[in-house]
């Protein structure tokens, strides 16, 4: 119940202003008069690109206290002119989705459930397994004696939302490790 000071009481304001019928200015609350957009107190606004399809629509990402508060179209983009499709418009919920899993999970062989695992240990375990698989399935030459110097021990399948820089490092690292079964959504 807002504090009704005599003069603030809309009935009085109806009598004192043009809005006698109480349908406009006379009935506005303090909170309404101080309305401002939800993003007005965002710390940063960053120009980004939508992660969904290949049209490449521009996005403006508003963030506050290191958390994305809103994402809308970037009017500067000559491709999308500030517009987004339903998926692009839902980007804020993609980023903050309740369905997001932000802790490492590990499933041991034959286990029925996930268990948590420290990230650092997980990367070590993966590195060891990779080298083991690499060694076990290493081939120096093919059956005709041509040099191949590769491993058929592990493979990768990437989505098509991996940045160019990330793709570059993955292809560079895995090729140097001798892996050739490197694949991507671009073929599917």
């Amino acid at each position: 119940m807002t504090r009704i000071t005599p003069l603030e009481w809309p009935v009085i304001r109806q009598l004192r202003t043009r809005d006698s019928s109480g349908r406009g200015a006379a009935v506005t609350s303090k909170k309404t008069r101080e309305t401002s957009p939800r993003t007005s107190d965002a710390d940063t606004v960053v120009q980004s690109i939508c992660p969904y399809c290949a049209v490449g629509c521009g996005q403006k990402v508003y963030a506050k206290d290191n958390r994305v508060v809103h994402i809308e179209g970037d009017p500067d983009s000559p491709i999308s002119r500030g517009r987004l499709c339903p998926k692009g418009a839902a980007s804020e919920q993609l980023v903050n989705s309740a369905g997001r899993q932000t802790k490492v999970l590990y499933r041991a062989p034959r286990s029925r459930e996930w268990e948590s695992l420290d990230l650092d240990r997980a990367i070590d375990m993966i590195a060891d397994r990779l080298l083991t698989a690499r060694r076990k399935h290493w081939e120096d030459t093919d059956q005709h004696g041509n040099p191949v110097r590769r491993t058929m021990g592990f493979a990768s399948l990437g989505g098509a939302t991996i940045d160019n820089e990330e793709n570059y490092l993955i292809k560079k690292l895995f090729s140097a490790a001798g892996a050739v079964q490197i694949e991507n959504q671009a073929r599917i």
Partner: protein
Amino acid sequence: MAECHPVGFQWVTEAKQRGARIIHVDPRFTRTSAVADRHIALRAGSDIVLLGALINYVLTHDLWFEEYVRAYTNAATIISEEYQDPEDLNGLFSGYNPEDGTYDKSTWSYQSATGRETVGEPGAETEDDAAEPHEFGAGGPPLSHANVRRDETLQDPRCVFQVLKRHFARYTPEMVEQTCGISVDDFTYLANSITENSGRERTTAFTYAVGWTQHAQGAQFIRTAAILQLLLGNMGRPGGGIIALRGHATIQGCTDIPTLFNLLPGYLPMPEAGQHNTLQTYLDSIGSKKQKGFWANADAYTISLLKAWWGDAATQENDFAYDYLPRLTGAHGTYQTLERMLRDELDGYFLIGQNPAVGSANGRMQRLGMSHLKWLVVRDFSLIESATWWKDGPEIHTGELRTEDIETEVFFLPAANHTEKAGSFTQTQRLVQWRHQAVTPPDDAQSELHFFHELGKRLRQRLAGSQDSRDRPLLDLTWDYPTDAHGEPDPEAVLAEINGFHVSGPDQGEPLSTFNEMRADGSTAGGCWIYTGIYADRVNQSARRKPGQEQDETAAEWAWAWPANRRLLYNRASADPQGRPWSERKKYVWWDDEQQRWTGKDVPDFPVDRAPDARPEPDAGGPAALAGDDPFIMQADGKGWLFAPHGLVDGPLPTHYEPPESPIGNPLYGQQSNPARIVLPGKDNLLAPSALQPGSEIYPHIFTTYRLTEHHTAGGMSRFLPYLAELQPEMFCEVSPEFAAEIGLEAYGWATIISPRSAIEARVFITERVTSLTIAGRRVHQVGLPYHWGVGNEAVVEGDAANDLLGLTLDPNVHIQGSKAAQCAVRPGRRPRGPELTKLVEDLRQQAGLTVETGNERLTVPWGEPQDQPRGEQ
């Protein structure tokens, strides 16, 4: 396009309001059709008949753009005598090898101008040395030289123009009606619309997506449209061309700087064991120094890449560490890898933001394959079905897999999303756009840059001091990128490496500004030659954000397009042979006589000072060999290829074959399906019998798969979001009223769809948007299936995956699976639960008498017979 690229569709809406005519050709009436001028329904998989008939229509009614075709295409080039057309061989091209289903392409070559011999592939001494299908970078195949015989009158029966005419002669409007189900009236409307809107004053554009690519001869579908657009003079001109509407934020980037088995960055092919044992044989296979075009400089691009990867360890002496590169022995695509998984030959598998348990064809085979792995690493935002199949997957419900018996270790590592990391996406028009970082990733989430850089560091630590030569490539790798406080490598440093820099010489360490600066002597390094220029003058060009409103329609100062910020490829063709715009209305790039330079609204896609009338000396090579009227600067002869002597492995000209599973026989030839298709016979990949053979009545209906606006491919980024899940909550199928009445489906009730691979259930949408067609005299029904849903417990909504129904038969050029046309059975009501499901699928397999060979016999006509083979029985 309105369904899957809605914001891109604003330009179609605007064009329509300015009088453009929009025609939507699709098995279904979709949201695009709703605002199109006319929707033309066709049978899924019959596109080449329609496009071939359009080519035939253009040629027979003499509607082709004569001046354009004569100057800019290889219409006049003479083909070798040995070439034989499907018209002669009942559906096959000459040079077919029945054992492994490949073609020896020598009989398709150009006739050399000097004598009788043909213009073969450089460096390929013997036939079996000819490059493997996946050998070619997408930049176009090599020719030993460009000096070919031509008949400028276009009358010689062996000139490309006449070969083309003869090849498509039987693709008539009546054939279209019989095979595609498109009425002659609709066909004529389409043909007139296209031809009336092409020529000097007007251009027509085709847009397509996986509706064309996901077929057993997908590459040829696109080739047919390319031929048509070349004949109509729509290539390289504003408002023309073929616009690929790719489906993912940076799927174009994923082929430019690929994580693909057959490509190195910049479309350089991965070396093949036996073909490319040495750097020299590798370079010769890509492009001869005597062929025209920019591929001739492949040595500079390759050596710059090797220098970028192995830095000082790559020296002149060790062929710039060429031997560090692993070699291919045939195809190692995702489906070949899946077969190895099933044979327990693969230990580990990384899934980086991909959901094959739902998004890859033959979902059941994918999940069974993963159960054979020793360890699986899934990097994603949420617990997608590919991370939880071992406890929630369909096979757990049917009992085919028991959680306790699955040995696979599964690591789920959280990934950072597009706002939590900086980096660049390459969208469908080759525009590379930089994303700035807004927030840092929460808890354990990491960017792929961070994770793989860290993984690389730890691998190198573990191998430090190893004397084993196999570890040299890892240890000599340039891997020291500057990292921030959290250990995240600086993406701009990686971009600088991709752009390339001078290793030695006066401006050592300075970034390269164009790929012409790349040298083959190791003095330059560059991660991806086509991206050179993106970091010119130490400025991240992809981060440029000059507002669109302050620029012209080309908007050249927004971000950066490869190559060289050029927005429309082959735009030299937007001017006539003398360099004048074809018309004032369609002006784009033209020759400026005073300045003796090409100029216009875009970066000219041509040596900028090469006058239109310039003719190269006879033995010139590379870019220097390009004549003033050779707009297709990547082709070995500088011309647009109506006939492709090399580059495609299943035929120099597209020809119609029925999909691997089809309700009818091939109306044009005895050869039923693409004889060069890649088949993967196996008990988990059985195919339905086609063409009215016994057993084909068990799976009588066609089904096709597609996407919806509200969801994103396998649902990993949409079914986990309440705001999107509520828009399309349940898996459904779309059927015509006639079909629904025939088998008793109830509006918004349930239906079970069964294929030789699996059975799924879906809600029933009875709608006139899906039409039943009369094909070859028979009434054929089509079922539409979106494929976004998957079985799991983590998403807001789940449902059966349409991909479980699909089989695996691959296009021989790019190894993409056929997802758009297959056969199924349909029954009212929900599917059985538990083991009953596998029983139902097995029952139908028995009734149809399926064996591992069914549908996988490549050749369906006698081969090696004399030429008087009957044209093609009806």
